[in-house]
């Protein structure tokens, strides 16, 4: 068979090559600008409350509100109870999240549904139900009073309410973080001689840490801002959210705003730090 000469015909001018989209450059740029602008509007809408807060806050109202004696007490209380809440979550939520992620529990869906239930219940309802669970006339309440404790209008009550409001955020976030760790890496570590706890410390935890940090940061923000359950079982002592509420009730909107800023200032740094840290940890792995 004679080989036929191969001819390559160049595409005629004006035609697009195969696979190319016939969109003029100018139109493409306009499209892009439009898309960015649209996303920008959505982003600004989400940030709207923060912008409103900053624009409506006057320096004088800030100094008068925060200059009053004891003005920082709610802040300190919230920070303390938030820290304790975080500790409780770390201690109790981490093993639960790990077990959920590894799927080693029987009927894993049932366990997950239990965690979701606390997320799905409105915080106010959680507060009401907590009264029936840890209130003074319940079995747990009796037990607590034997220990000279009470879970009504105390620091303990505040912590309990915050734990219930923030736990699902932490557990689900940490579960996702553990779930992203390849179990074969843990197997490999075990084959290299590490018993389970050391595998957890050397492999699982470092790999899950960025995700867990984010989960903790979100849980912290939820705990600091917990209101629904808190207002039912821990009206006193007064944390920041309740301070905002009572100030609003008693003296009106303008005097409540400074506390809103304080809440923002206290609740945000940790999530932002966690975000930056986890982003850096992830990029370090890629370099």
């Amino acid at each position, binding site marked *: 068979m004679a080989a036929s000469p191969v001819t390559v015909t160049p595409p005629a001018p004006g035609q697009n090559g195969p696979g190319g989209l016939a969109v003029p450059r100018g139109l493409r740029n306009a499209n892009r600008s439009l898309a960015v602008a649209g996303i920008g509007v959505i982003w600004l809408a989400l940030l709207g409350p923060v912008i409103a807060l900053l624009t409506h806050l006057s320096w004088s109202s800030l100094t008068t509100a925060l200059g009053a004696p004891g003005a920082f007490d709610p802040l300190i209380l919230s920070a303390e109870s938030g820290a304790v809440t975080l500790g409780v979550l770390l201690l109790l939520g981490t093993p639960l999240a790990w077990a959920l992620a590894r799927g080693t529990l029987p009927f894993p869906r049932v366990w997950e549904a239990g965690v979701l239930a606390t997320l799905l219940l409105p915080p106010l309802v959680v507060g009401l139900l907590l009264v029936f669970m840890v209130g003074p006339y319940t079995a747990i309440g009796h037990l607590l009073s034997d220990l000279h404790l009470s879970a009504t209008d105390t620091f303990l009550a505040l912590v309990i309410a915050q734990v219930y409001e923030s736990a699902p955020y932490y557990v689900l976030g940490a579960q996702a973080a553990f779930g992203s760790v390849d179990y074969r890496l843990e197997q*490999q570590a075990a*084959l*290299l*001689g590490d018993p389970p706890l050391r595998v957890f410390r050397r492999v699982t935890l470092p790999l899950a840490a960025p995700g867990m940090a984010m989960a903790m940061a979100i849980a912290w923000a939820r705990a600091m801002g917990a209101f629904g359950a808190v207002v039912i079982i821990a009206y006193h002592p007064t944390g920041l959210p309740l301070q905002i509420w009572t100030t609003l009730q008693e003296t009106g909107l303008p005097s409540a705003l400074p506390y809103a800023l304080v809440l923002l200032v206290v609740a945000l740094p940790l999530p932002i730090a966690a975000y930056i840290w986890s982003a850096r940890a992830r990029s370090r*792995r890629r*370099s």
Partner: protein
Amino acid sequence: MLEADVEVDRRDFTVRARLTVAPGERLALFGPSGAGKTTLLEVIAGLVAPRRARITLSGRVLTSTGKSVTALPPWQRRVGMLRQDPGLFPHLSVRDNLLYARTRSTSGSAGAELAELAGLLEIDRLMAAMPARLSGGQAHRVALGRLLLSHCDALLLDEPYAGLDASLRRTLTDLVVSLVAERRVPAILVAHELAEAQAFADRLAVLDRGELLQVGAPGEVVLRPAAHRVAELVGYTAFVPVPGSGPGPGSGPGPAAQSLTVAAGSGSGSGSDSDSDSDWDSGSGSVPGSGSVPGSGSGPGSGSGFAGVVAGIHPDRVISGRHPDRGLVLAGIVSSCRPAGALWEVAIRAAGTTVTGRLPEAVPTGTVAELTAVDPPYFDADGAAVVAAAAPAGDHAFAEGARPGRAGVEK
């Protein structure tokens, strides 16, 4: 010495195998995907619980389900495992990965050994890099180095180089071979590619659906498969009925005593061999194409003599031309001829089945070609090898008393 006698349940079958691997010995577990090879390794590594097993490694009992139950956890077995995914810890640098198993108690001599091994593996300039930056080959070298620095007592390699290109695979295989010899540890490689298994192993075990079909030298298993199924697995693509081998009338004294020609049917113009005095294919103008399957001889053909024995044809063990002194001559019409690497894959229709051979020269389609299957293995209706054991490779037992038989050719 690694000794494993394992019975472990899989979803649809039970893996049963008994293996012994001496220090410095390299055993390849070869079989199709899903044969249970990886499961076997995971039982040895302690990652999967067996139904029944006794595994010892240099005198230590790793698993025992007998009277005294032992099940050492993976971290106490000192068994190293390398998988297709190198499994480097992404949060640790190459150096920290390599030294992962070197904890306080063993870190004394690590530095010198690390340097030596890194040089050998050609990863000494990557020490500070993070695993995400490594190429596939580099990652595998690091994983291998980490395994060797852990001083495990046995190496389990689970298709470690499946995703790598051929030359890299070769280099790494050679490296492992020399390191296993130097360390004198028993090594098991799981492979579903025969060439890879052969390049690595000095003993080859064929596993299929959890059953250990044959263990032998890498060459022997291919040249002398112990069973029909083994032959299929090691690359025999066609099984042609052997004339005059069955119990029926006209059956000859068995394949070992005769030269065999499976020729094209009359009218095909094949020349010398197309005499029509066939005594075994009469009435079966078309032999079922599946005549190669053991036990299928219950059809109409079984009475006429070819029910029993089939010859396995390996495409790489076929030469062109008529060489009755070297094996089984097959004649048939060329149905296709296409390039396969540097060779031509030629398919002919013979004995009711398609026989392919890889030849150095192309053969025009439609013509009659004669191929000789060099020293083919024979299998009886039950799938067991019949002549293979009796006739060593190179024996010209087929040279005498040429008695051509014929098979019908479907066109």
